[in-house]
């Protein structure tokens, strides 16, 4: 044994020197950065975040009331990790992957401390079907078999991306196993299991990144038509309180065409998470007809739960997302809200007495945000599948002011920007996405997909809608000064068409059973019908029809009901016919 080893073991145990809120300083341990440590007699979980001479600073994931200087600190020598394997889906975790239902069982309705709970059910047996044979060469990333995690959802068992998993299969078994039992062995002795551990702050490996060219379909008209997001893309939804961030995030979690959803409630309201917990098991995935909860992993670290665990929660979620991506799934990760995560960083940073950057946020805010979003993407996995992680981050700017550091640093990385507007929310125009300030940089790369898969005129019609909306904005400024009656007839018609686009197309009721999800085809036909009116009315106007009679046409108002109707095709055809009949009268 070398001298170093003796010192190592001695320095695993230290003592608390100072406690200030969630930040504890210890002496006597020699830990590495981000090592997991157990703090105090109750063995509270913590993570090393600063080393200064003899003193090691630790952020503690649990309440530190009553801790005393002199109590024991123990270094585990391992970084904060999550346990990955079958059983993640349909779970609800706190920020450090402790299952909340298990915590309820162990300590009642309130979150108390010092409780350890594994992230996966260790007893449950899974039916494992191997897909490699004895003697076959394998390497990190090889799929060695599968488990049906949820009805219809195959969980592929992949060799962890670590060098010791290169070799030949020496033994592999089929049958029922729990996540810890050996299912086989490699010739170098490496044991195979259904589960693996992965440190949350280290991105999982993949072969290479791909272009984002497939849209992330959300069933929300304003998103899919005007500001589309790509699979593997990054979007931000910033908005002040009450503008509908959470409703938008939840709607996306419900209806988007991802295979797996990881929803992180980061520093938000407890009742909101409860709502998700109540609603998701009852809702059905529109594509598979199975409960939405079966494809969802929830991470709930509400605003009053320990702030350090909030900081960790986004990494916990991202690692789980990467794990499913590696199986070749399209994963969507929703973080509500990244501002609370940034604030957790700020809180810890100020306890460390670090020199602050803008508005008290640590100077590394931009780096951390960029690193996080960069873990999104569509990739070739190690097992030669194509998987993706689409990240949608809610941002809660103080006072709804987008010039603050979190929003600005987020905008520098993301490609789709859905700007929420309190003025729209006040008029109960939902989703309150401002169509003039929002943007999507994926529009061009996704064009081909929409034209090939939805309809030839998609791009052209979307552009026409946008043109009307932009024209409306200009005209409204004039209306503010002179009133709408003073405008020329042509412009009055433009205002009317823009109103129809806003009310009949952009507004979407997330709480209406039909309108909550809009098929691509329905979007296409709705746009077509509105623009049909627009073209015909403009024509009629040129041929001398009166503007009032065009605005007061009864048939066009019935387009308003289409949103709420399941059998929209028949109705739309009828409306078109009615409109044409009315237009004929003007000729």
């Amino acid at each position, binding site marked *: 044994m070398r001298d170093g080893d003796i010192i190592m073991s001695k320095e695993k145990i230290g003592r608390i020197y100072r406690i200030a809120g969630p930040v504890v300083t210890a002496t006597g341990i020699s830990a590495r950065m981000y090592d997991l440590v157990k703090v105090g007699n109750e063995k509270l979980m913590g993570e090393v975040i600063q080393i200064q001479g003899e003193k090691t600073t630790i952020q503690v994931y649990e309440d530190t009331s009553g801790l005393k200087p002199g109590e024991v600190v123990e270094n585990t020598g391992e970084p904060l990790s999550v346990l990955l394997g079958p059983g993640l889906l349909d779970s609800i975790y706190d920020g450090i992957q402790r299952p909340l239902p298990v915590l309820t069982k162990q300590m009642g309705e309130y979150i108390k401390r010092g409780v350890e709970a594994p992230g996966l059910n260790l007893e449950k047996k899974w039916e494992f079907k191997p897909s490699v044979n004895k003697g076959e060469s394998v390497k990190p990333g090889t799929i060695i078999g599968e488990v049906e995690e949820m009805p219809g959802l195959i969980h592929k068992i992949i060799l962890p991306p670590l060098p010791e998993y290169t070799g030949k299969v020496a033994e592999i078994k089929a049958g029922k196993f729990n996540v810890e039992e050996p299912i086989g062995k490699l010739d170098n002795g490496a044991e195979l299991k259904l589960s693996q551990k992965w440190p949350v702050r280290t991105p999982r490996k993949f072969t290479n990144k791909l272009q984002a060219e497939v849209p992330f379909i959300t069933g929300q008209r304003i998103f899919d038509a005007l500001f589309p997001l790509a699979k593997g893309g990054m979007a931000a939804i910033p908005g002040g309180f009450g503008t509908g961030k959470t409703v938008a995030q939840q709607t996306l979690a419900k209806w988007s065409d991802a295979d797996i959803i990881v929803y992180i409630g980061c520093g938000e309201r407890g009742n909101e998470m409860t709502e998700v917990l109540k609603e998701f098991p009852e809702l059905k995935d529109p594509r598979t007809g199975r409960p939405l909860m079966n494809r969802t992993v929830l991470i709930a670290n509400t605003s009053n739960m320990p702030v350090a665990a909030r900081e960790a929660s986004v990494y916990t979620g991202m690692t789980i997302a990467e794990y499913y991506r590696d199986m070749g799934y399209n994963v969507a990760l929703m973080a509500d809200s990244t501002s609370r995560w940034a604030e957790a960083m700020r809180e810890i940073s100020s306890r460390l007495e670090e020199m602050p950057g803008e508005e008290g946020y640590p100077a590394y805010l931009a780096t951390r945000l960029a690193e996080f979003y960069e873990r999104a993407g569509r990739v070739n996995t190690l097992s030669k599948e194509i998987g993706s992680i689409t990240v949608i981050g809610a941002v809660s700017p*103080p006072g709804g002011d987008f010039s603050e550091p979190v929003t600005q640093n987020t905008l520098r990385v993301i490609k789709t920007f859905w700007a929420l507007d*309190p003025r729209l929310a006040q008029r109960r125009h939902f989703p309150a996405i401002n169509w003039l300030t929002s943007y999507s940089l994926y529009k061009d790369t996704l064009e081909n997909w929409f034209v090939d898969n939805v309809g030839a005129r998609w791009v052209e019609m979307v552009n026409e809608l946008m043109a009307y909306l932009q024209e409306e904005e200009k005209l409204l400024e004039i209306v503010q000064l002179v009133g709408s009656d003073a405008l020329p007839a042509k412009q009055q018609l433009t205002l009317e068409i823009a109103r129809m686009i806003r009310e009949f197309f952009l507004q979407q009721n997330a709480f209406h059973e039909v309108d909550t999800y809009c098929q691509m085809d329905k979007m296409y036909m709705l746009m077509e019908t509105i623009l049909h009116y627009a073209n015909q009315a403009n024509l009629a106007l040129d041929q001398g029809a009166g503007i009032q009679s065009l605005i007061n046409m009864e048939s066009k108002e019935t387009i308003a009901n289409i949103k709420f109707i399941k059998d929209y095709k028949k109705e739309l055809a009828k409306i078109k016919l009615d409109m044409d009949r009315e237009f004929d009268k003007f000729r």
Partner: protein
Amino acid sequence: MLKEYRTITKVAGPLIFTEKTDAVGYADLVQIKLSDGSIKMGQVLDTSEDIVVVQVFEGTRGIDRKNTWVKFLGDTIKLNVSKNMLGRILSGAGKPIDGGPEVIPEKKLDITGAAINPYSRKSPAEFIQTGISTIDACNTLVRGQKLPIFSGSGLPHNEIALQIARQAKVPGKEQAFAVIFAAMGITNEEAQYFMKDFEQTGALQRAVVFLNLASDPASERLITPRMALTAAEYLAFEHDMHVLVILTDLTNYCESLREIGAAREEIPGRRGYPGYMYTDLATIYERAGMIHGKNGSITQIPILTMMGDDITHPIPDLTGYITEGQIVLSRELHRKNIYPPIDILPSLSRLMNAGIGPTKTREDHKQVSDQLYANYAEGRDLRGLVAIVGEEALSDKDKKLLKFADEFEKRFVRQGKHEDRDIKGTLGIGWDLMRMMPKKDLIRIKPEFKDKYYDK
């Protein structure tokens, strides 16, 4: 035997720094004995082998280095709770100030309170009828919600809070709410106003009052809401009561928080408020709700005054991000002599949809609310236009909308301080107003509801 120390090295604002102590627990309660024999209480904010920082609740006046004794009690702050607390008036630190005896404790509870496991929470979904139209119809309150009132100085937020406390009920269930009233730094006069109303209406018998007045120490304010919520949790979750907690004024609370932060020389966040204010406020607001398997509930109505009526000020801003909506008062409406001056446009109740509908209020409730919002918003916009172009330049529809906005304020928003409108009456006024508009313009309402209610 607990040791007493005479090792104070520094006194700054509400903080004292002591050294050469044995190991002292974080957040522990501290007793400080002054040279004149008087006793103050405090709490450990920072502890290490070298220095312990203590926040003194009653202010540091009279504390010196040589003759002040500090005793660490080795326990966190606890409140004596009992069902007999109802009807009592306590200080901001939980001591009786109504001349009655000490509360005989059934339990001693830690006032910090732990976070409710989100998995154990029950979704709030029971409609509370406050009898105030703008709240019931447009920003519905439900049991277990936290819905703050964003007010300004000089606006009648206290009257509204009292009216809610008086009138709140769940239709069909006549069990009255228990009221926990926590005052933080309000004036004696305001406190008197509340007390008088509680006494007159008999509400005091089912209330617990925690009073920290403007003249009381500022740092005590930091524990007052936690005391109140500890009492609320006890009554709600151990005695199955429905508790309505009124906290006023959170602005004073946040000022105290800033004061402590400054005394500790912390790096401040926005406008000098500490960076952890969001988390700190969350540990107050998130203590509302309902729990699976428990019959009681905690509904919170925090009141805060917005500095310069600015809703983007850190206090209302952070509050709005935690609470489930907000009721915003408007100076403009107040000037027009409209009570309650609730501006529905920036107001919001996030849990409204869960608490309304055919079985809870009425089938048309949601759509009536949406339509009222839309019309009023348009009408308000038009007022700006009229100021420039005059009413004659408006279209017929716009003239109607303008009239609608005026009538809405006069008939729907305005009501008496003791006028208790039931939900049917409130929706009825809504329909009366909507009849001012042509039926076809009410696009947010389903045709069948229009047939049922518009034509009658």
